[in-house]
């Protein structure tokens, strides 16, 4: 935790959250949540990837750089990845990235990796709900508004 920097909770703060969802599991889970008419917060923007292993740590860093308050990566359960070990690699990368975010002061609590299967629309909706609440409690990203002009 980078408690020192936790910004004061802002009134009416609506976090922007980016979710990288694997096509074969959690994206289908999101679909199922949709057809089952489950509600989840509008703060989450879902980005479909073909596998959680496709998510380069740079994507996450770039999202944070551009002011995302939280980033979620979801993939198939270990053993269920359609490309055998994409999610194992995703997990390794996630752990390294978490360390880096703690070091540089953004805080690993702003990112999350979860496994959700295609049949689990309820888990998907619940996770979105819970993560949004978690990020809302954390407050806005300390990088909000610091246009880095990277690209």
């Amino acid at each position, binding site marked *: 935790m*980078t408690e*020192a*920097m936790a910004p004061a909770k802002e009134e009416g703060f609506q976090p922007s959250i980016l979710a990288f969802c694997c096509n074969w599991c959690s994206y289908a889970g999101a679909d199922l949540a949709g057809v089952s008419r489950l509600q989840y917060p509008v703060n989450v923007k879902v980005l479909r990837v073909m596998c959680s292993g496709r998510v*380069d*740590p*740079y*994507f996450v*860093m*770039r999202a*944070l*750089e551009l002011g995302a308050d939280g980033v979620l990566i979801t993939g198939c359960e270990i053993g269920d990845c359609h490309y055998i070990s994409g999610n194992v690699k995703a997990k*390794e990368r996630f*752990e*390294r990235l978490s*360390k*880096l975010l*703690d*070091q*540089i*002061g*953004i805080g690993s609590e702003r990112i999350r990796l979860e496994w959700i299967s295609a049949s689990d629309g309820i888990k998907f909706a619940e996770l979105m709900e819970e993560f949004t609440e978690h990020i809302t409690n954390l407050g806005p990203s*300390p*990088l909000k508004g*610091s*246009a*880095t*002009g*990277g*690209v």
Partner: protein
Amino acid sequence: MDKENVKRLISDMGAHDCVECGKCTTVCPVTRFNPEFAPRLVVVKALAGEDMDLSKDSDIWVCNTCEMCNNMCPYEVDYSGFIRGMRGEARREGHEPDCTQGGLLHAMMRIMANSDLPQKRLDWIADGLKVAEKGDVFLFVGCLPQMDAIFEDRNLNLVETARSAVRIMNHIGIEPVVSPKEKCCGHDLNWAGDEKNLIKLMNHNVQVIKDSGAKTVVFTCPECLRTFDLDYQDFLGDFEFEMVHISEFIARAIEEGKLKFPENISISTTFHDSCRLGRHLGLYDEPRRVLAEIPSVELVELEKNREAATCCGVSGFMSCNSISKVMQMEKMQDAKRTGADVLVTPCPKCRIHLDCSTRDETPVDKGLVDIPIMDFTVLVDLALRGELQIPDVQDKEAEKEAEKTE
């Protein structure tokens, strides 16, 4: 492309003096493996005022900025400076280089440049190491801890370099200042043409050093030193504090009789002149003098050493490509051929890249390149403690097998 800017670049870098002798092209390692690239032609094209399409011009990004060409040029054309300037131009037009790690490192540096987050920079400080908040000597650690996180799977333990530097300093009674406020020096952004963010990092870092009251700043990383010594001072004029590489610092301590080495096991080493330390900063003798001072350490020179040393193949974490790999294989084969026990590198980045090149499958027979790589600072520290050892060549295949069967 802003023609005025390019004109200014040409005159600043002395490109008008070019006599088209082509010496630069004959030594360029990139040209050797990619005949389509020629530093002379890039200069000639710019001189002719040709309207280069920077979006398509890959020439400005494939250069390794190793300064072989600068070194060879009879008219002292600052070719690498010219390339850096052109990269700035390309960036202003919105073009980007291919960065390794997808650009993660550059993003991290931009974030540091544009925010003031409370960083955890000093977790590497171990028991028994004495550091201070204020004092005469500042140890600029740079991004060693961050690199360890990014390359954690490679077990490089880069922070050991920082620990070793502190131990060496403690040995001669110095408690160096280390600061959690330090930010990345911006070297990689600078060479990617991102001057704007370099300047932000520069202003911050210089303030941190001024606040510490230090008179001397010691660097274990030649890239940081280059950036401070050449680039920062270019913008800000001469600093009041002095900047030295750890090899200079140690060489001086030896001269002043403050460092004496105990008996160690005999090791034969070979030394990699990193391009930043060597051609950019001209520090060839200092590390050699230090190695010569350690009783049981022998130095066998690489075939290509000092000014002629080939680089590690990647600079600024950009353009790591097949040419980089060929260059790295050449370097490692050269090292292995010397028969030395270890290849010593003064640059942590070179260590990262050269280690990468010999991991997993190699394009040449593994036996031709399997020489362990050791950091210069760590070697000196071990020797000082009488604990010098020949590190194992990590048996990476075996490591992988073990992981699989786990």
